[in-house]
């Protein structure tokens, strides 16, 4: 495989509340390659968004800070990059799309104003040139009637249209990497497919690398090339999409897959994983999944498993067993 575009190594992010620090992202490592979609899945609160924000250098300060690890992008480490240089990277080399399009656009400015402001931040172009670029970006995400939209304000657009604007904003400067954090969760089901389709089309056309954060395994199975599963701030399993879905090894991955309703095959009770995600202030000392794991050994309680590479797969488990049909 080609050399990675972005390499995250041992990334650890801590949050501080009332004088107590706790890790919300713990030793996360992954690589992103050009023209590839990496799916990042897990329950809410498992640290997916914090991982993405850490890569972008957008974690809420001073409540949170990156306590260790590096994010290698080209020959630079984004974690130690001065804020001034990091701003050059954001929106230009690496872009991000957020979950809730309804609240993610400044209500006081027109769409055109918001887009051109970001363009002119990164490119020394005239206002008309920036407007032309913005217009083209809006057309590419198939926003209907883009000329009119340019002069409209966010409140005049539907949620789906606003998310298209967000995508246009993220893509207009041709970034190498796009981070999409639950880009369709807040949208109507019918709009979700359209938005995802747009996003995919653009990713392919540009040969862009994309980190797709979602809790929707169906979406991941359909679009991702590789999948990383996060639990309690850690990546517990990472594999090419086919391998992960056909032969999940980590009991948590297996639980997630079993929890997806399989309407075609059988009816009956849905599978759930017993217990809850441990609060980040209070994570078990061994494997963080041990309290909820049906296969936990004594060792799982006493020792923290490492993420071990094995034939294209990375797994963090002492006692993997093949998935038994439910």
């Amino acid at each position, binding site marked *: 495989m080609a050399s990675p575009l972005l390499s995250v190594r041992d990334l650890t992010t801590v949050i501080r509340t009332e004088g107590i620090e706790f890790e919300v992202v713990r030793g996360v490592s992954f690589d992103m390659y050009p023209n590839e979609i990496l799916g990042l899945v897990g329950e809410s609160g498992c640290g997916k968004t914090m991982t993405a924000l850490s890569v972008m250098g957008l974690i809420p300060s001073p409540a949170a800070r990156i306590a260790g690890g590096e994010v290698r992008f080209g020959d630079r480490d984004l974690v130690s990059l001065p804020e001034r240089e990091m701003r050059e990277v954001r929106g230009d080399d690496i872009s991000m799309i*957020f979950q809730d399009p309804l609240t993610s*656009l400044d*209500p*006081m400015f027109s769409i055109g104003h918001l887009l051109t402001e970001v363009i002119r931040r990164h490119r020394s172009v005239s206002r008309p040139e920036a407007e032309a670029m913005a217009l083209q970006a809006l057309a590419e995400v198939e926003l209907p009637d883009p000329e009119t939209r340019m002069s409209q*304000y966010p409140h005049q657009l539907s949620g789906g249209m606003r998310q298209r604007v967000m995508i246009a904003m993220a893509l207009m400067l041709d970034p190498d990497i796009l981070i999409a954090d639950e880009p369709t969760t807040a949208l109507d089901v019918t709009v979700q497919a359209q938005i995802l389709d747009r996003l995919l089309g653009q990713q392919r056309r540009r040969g862009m690398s994309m980190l797709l954060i979602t809790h929707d395994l169906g979406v991941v199975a359909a679009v991702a090339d590789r999948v990383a599963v996060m639990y309690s701030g850690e990546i517990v399993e990472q594999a090419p999409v086919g391998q992960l879905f056909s032969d999940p090894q980590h009991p948590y991955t297996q639980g997630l897959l079993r929890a997806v309703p399989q309407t075609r095959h059988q009816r009956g009770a849905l599978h759930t994983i017993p217990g809850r995600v441990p609060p980040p202030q209070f994570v078990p000392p061994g494997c963080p999944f041990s309290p909820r794991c049906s296969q936990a050994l004594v060792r799982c309680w006493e020792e923290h498993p490492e993420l071990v590479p094995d034939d294209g797969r990375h797994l963090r488990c002492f006692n993997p067993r093949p998935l038994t049909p439910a």
Partner: protein
Amino acid sequence: MRYLASRTVYMLVILAISSVAVFYAIRLSGGDATAARLPASATEADRETLREVLGLNDPIYQQYFTYMGRLLSGDLGNSLTNNALISKMVVEHGRNSIILGAAAFLLVFLVGVPLGMLASVRRNTLADQGIMSLSVAGMAVPNFWLALLSIWLFASVLRWLPSAGCCEPRQLILPAIVLAAEGTALTVRMTRSAMLENLDSDWVRTLRAGGLSESRVIGKHVFRNALIPIISLAGLRIGQIVGYALIVEVIFGWPGLGQVLVNAVLRRDYPVAQFFSLVLVVMVVLGNWLADLGYLAANPRLRKT
């Protein structure tokens, strides 16, 4: 446009209602209007004749329309105390009041908003705490007391500024600051909380993700959003200035509408009290309306539907 129309209609209705209220309040309980115009020795028959002449025996609603009609034709009558033409008084004193009020209004926003922004940007630092303590003090110190203190300090002890009078710029400084104090304190608090509220919003993250600098995000976008609640309460600031002008003008001997009104009330000069009350009420209502217009202009969500 619908917003503009509805606010304008509302303003006119409020004007109508409040003019009626002011008229009745002062006319109905104004005591025997003949007492001020006739000597105590006048007979009841004389008084009755005067009442007839003044239209005081007409039905009260008719008196209102007669009064408003006279107002519209510019006939405001004369003061009972010095027989001055009320129309001349209102022009002269109105100008003084507007100078003082405008100075205070500018101070409230030109000092309050930047201080509030500074406090929000330097949240939980010494600067923030200092500004917020000052603002608590600004709200706790009654402005007539502040007026006395400032006269004592700047006029009596330091002798930097005159203690009272009108209408040189030097004489304007103290009354304008005292009149603006509480409004400034409130504006500081409001600006700070509006800035902080907007700083937490999702779109701030979007702008940061676009690579915009912190100064741009805060100085342009967050500030622009924070302006909305500030402008929407500008009408109240105007009302507050009109209200406090009644006190401050008296203390500093600033011959404005407020001072005249208070003296008129104390001297039972009903024609003056009635008209000047009306003028101040109209100023408050118009101030609220202007703030509505500003709110409309500043808020794209209302400009287009």
